[in-house]
């Protein structure tokens, strides 16, 4: 017969305020198997835990039921107390009489007390069936793959590399730098974005512990925490990476002009191109979709153009001086073996097209990201402020906030950075051209963050017009290319209109393209809004439901640069904490197949969300087998198995049935 100790926690007033703890303790003493029942103000405190430890040491109890709060936050603490007392830590069960009882039934004290009795009774019934379990462990490979070479991925890479961990940084674009390198200046300090980021990009590229895989994508991933096996596709550049010196001759002689996606199609680049002047790595690549060589080969089988390779000898135009052009290059696949994976694939800004009320057909209506390029020294006009429709210098601007954010038709969330970047862009303009008339339309001004509100008030003092209280209802295109912006000013209590040369839309931050695919590839949870979900918003903001896979930056939700960097360095430290000890402990609360009972029906295999179950054996004599390191103990297989051949340790059928039967019995 087991000797169960029941420990009823008051949780200050949280439980005791609704539950008669003394009555519950007295009731617990009468339950079968219970030898000791005690109550205390805070069971999780040191003296609270000591009560449990002393009872175990004194031989009074060999199993523990704690009637307190949620196991999600406190189970580990009480298990540890059991272990320190001298029993197997899995002989501990919790009855959640706070979240499931006192909080829910605060105004029904008698009912809450009855329910507490019931919850404890069922926990005791389960405790009778608990078995001691042992944790297992495996080796951890000290290397991390980081996907995404924006500011978040870069800072994670540098921190991990500095800790002596081998890093593989996978970036799908030809250069690292992400969105930040496209910005002109950054709030709240007005640092030149390129000036502060370029040295970091170079540091990433030169660090001996970082292997940069640019122009590459994750093809497949297998394995588990400590030992992931990843295949990365290095896309063919058609230019020999090692030979290319980044001199740019190919980009000058290439005759094929293409819209430049780096500048949101506002100018052109060549089919042979270097992504931007400070690109890291500074290498050229050929865009095979638009290259005349590839186009003509597909059509006629004959090359129409090889100028980048051979030049035009008759005109004394030279081709690549490094002899690096290689039209025959193929995609290359690289296999990586890493202990952890860090996802930092960022966001994409919404385009203006879905907002028909804002005249997206007008070239003078631009998104904030496009405007950022227009005012940037490396942008389509090389920093010259020009109106897209006619090249004139615009003098008046309307900034429109919450375009696609806080809107059930698009995204319900606040994109968090728009208020600040609107002020920042307005300030860049106003500092350069003090005569500019600037109108900023907000629902409300949201500037929480270090030095942010000071930035806001400074902008007001510069003489910007801040119109609060409404979303802009319409932007109309006028015959002279100007725009009439219509809003409501709640400070005036009146509808307002303004005619401006340009309108800038602060469009929402969206999860980057392919985020959903990532969620599937790595078995991660994706929130309704499309961003990947952390394990716990407050306590575990960088961990995911797949152990060993971490999140950093905007893949987890909208963030500004300081926040992205903070999170990326947090993720790096979480990954390092996992890998540096060299061993990874696996929870024993997982499922196991009893091969003697398994009929080999295979029902469980496709249901496992983690792909942990495979069928082994031959000639019709197959049995399900669970890869223990992949199993998270969700219990789907155990619940499904028609032969009851699968046991979820810690939740055996007997234990769960005992719990249910006791719960369902009438109140006493």
């Amino acid at each position, binding site marked *: 017969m087991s000797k169960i100790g029941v420990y009823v926690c008051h949780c200050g007033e949280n439980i005791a305020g609704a539950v008669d703890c003394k009555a519950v303790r007295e009731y617990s003493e009468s339950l079968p198997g219970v030898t000791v029942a005690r109550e205390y103000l805070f069971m999780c405190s040191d003296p609270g835990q000591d009560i449990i430890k002393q009872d175990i040491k004194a031989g009074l109890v060999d199993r523990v039921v704690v009637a307190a709060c949620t196991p999600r936050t406190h189970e580990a603490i009480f298990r540890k107390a059991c272990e320190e007392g001298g029993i197997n830590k899995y002989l501990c069960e919790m009855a959640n009489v706070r979240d499931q009882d006192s909080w829910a039934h605060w105004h029904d004290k008698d009912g809450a007390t009855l329910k507490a009795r019931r919850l404890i009774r069922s926990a005791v019934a389960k405790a009778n069936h608990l078995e001691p379990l042992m944790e297992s462990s495996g080796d951890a490979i000290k290397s991390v793959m980081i996907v995404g070479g924006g500011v978040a991925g870069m800072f994670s890479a540098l921190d991990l590399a500095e800790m002596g961990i081998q890093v593989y940084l996978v970036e799908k674009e030809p250069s690292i730098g992400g969105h930040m390198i496209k910005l002109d200046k950054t709030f709240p300090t007005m640092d030149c974005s390129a000036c502060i980021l370029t040295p970091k990009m170079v540091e990433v590229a030169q660090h001996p512990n970082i292997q940069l895989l640019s122009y590459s994508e994750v093809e497949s991933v297998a394995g588990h925490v400590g030992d992931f096996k990843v295949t990365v596709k290095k896309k063919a550049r058609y230019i020999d990476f090692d030979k290319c010196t980044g001199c740019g001759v190919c980009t000058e002689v290439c005759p094929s002009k293409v819209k430049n996606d780096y500048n949101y199609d506002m100018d052109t680049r060549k089919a042979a191109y270097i992504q931007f002047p400070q690109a890291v790595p500074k290498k050229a690549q050929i865009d095979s979709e638009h290259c005349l060589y590839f186009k003509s080969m597909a059509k006629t089988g004959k090359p129409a153009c090889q100028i980048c390779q051979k030049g035009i000898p008759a005109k004394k135009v030279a081709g690549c001086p490094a002899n690096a052009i290689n039209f025959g290059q193929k995609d290359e696949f690289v296999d990586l073996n890493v202990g952890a994976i860090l996802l930092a694939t960022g966001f994409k800004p919404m385009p203006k097209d879905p907002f028909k009320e804002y005249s997206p057909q007008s070239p003078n209506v631009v998104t904030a990201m496009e405007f950022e390029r227009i005012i940037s020294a490396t942008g389509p006009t090389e920093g010259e402020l020009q109106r897209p429709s006619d090249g004139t210098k615009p003098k*008046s601007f309307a900034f429109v906030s919450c375009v696609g954010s806080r809107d059930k038709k698009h995204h319900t969330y606040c994109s968090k950075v728009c208020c600040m970047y609107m002020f920042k862009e307005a300030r860049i303009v106003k500092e350069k051209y003090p005569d500019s*008339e600037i*109108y900023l339309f907000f629902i409300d*001004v949201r500037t929480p963050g270090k030095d942010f509100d000071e930035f*806001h*008030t400074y902008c*007001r*003092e*510069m*003489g910007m*017009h*801040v*119109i*609060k209280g409404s979303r802009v209802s319409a932007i109309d295109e006028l015959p002279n290319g100007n725009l009439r912006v*219509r809003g409501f*000013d709640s*400070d*005036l*209590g*009146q*509808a*307002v*209109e*303004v*005619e*401006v040369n340009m309108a800038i839309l602060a469009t929402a931050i969206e999860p980057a393209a392919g985020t959903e695919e990532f969620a599937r590839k790595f078995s991660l949870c994706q929130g309704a809004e499309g961003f990947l979900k952390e394990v716990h918003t407050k306590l575990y903001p960088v961990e995911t439901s797949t152990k060993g896979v971490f999140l950093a930056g905007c893949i987890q939700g909208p963030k500004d640069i300081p926040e992205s960097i903070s999170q990326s360095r947090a993720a790096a430290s979480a990954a390092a904490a996992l890998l540096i000890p060299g061993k990874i402990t696996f929870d024993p609360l997982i499922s196991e197949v009893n091969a003697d009972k398994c009929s080999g029906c295979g029902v469980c295999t496709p249901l496992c969300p983690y792909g942990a179950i495979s069928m082994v054996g031959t000639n019709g004599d197959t049995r399900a087998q669970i890869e223990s390191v992949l199993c998270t103990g969700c219990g789907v297989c155990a619940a499904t198995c028609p032969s009851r051949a699968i046991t979820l340790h810690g939740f055996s059928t007997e234990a769960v049935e005992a719990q249910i039967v006791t719960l369902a019995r009438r109140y006493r």
Partner: protein
Amino acid sequence: MAIILSEMDKAFIGEIRERGGFDIRACVQCGKCAATCPLSLAGFPFYIKKLIHAIECGMREEIMEDPSMWACQSCNRCVEVCPQDVKPYEVLLALRRAAVRELSVPGNTIEGLRNYYKTGHAVYPKGYQAKRKAVGLSEEPPSTLSFPEMLEQLQEFLRNSELNEVGLFPMKKEEKK
């Protein structure tokens, strides 16, 4: 009717700042002043918060045509509570200075100023002499009324002030009799 912001008087805010409302742009429209302002409590359309924003919007005509600014009780509560140190009352005084420049003043203000010039008292009720005498006081109070040379000095001062340039009423140097 919507207010067309781009057609408003962009020089207005500059004038108000020059005339004493220098910190007006620090206003973030938090509304703490409006919550204490007697103008908003009494239901005047342009209470101090809205006045400040309307000045920023360049709504010169709308403000000048409205009597709100003259209803300010000079309680100074707005200055005491303003978290941005805008000194709203200073803005209001600057606004009144601008209004006087445009002769956009209520009739009784002109009357008060005329009294002030003539007697040294803005409010000058008639027939008080007998009452003063009845309680044992001198017929005229010990002010400019009792000291004509002081009144002369005051008039000299006013003639040299901007008020004379505005020309709300004639300020002639009276010939000595």
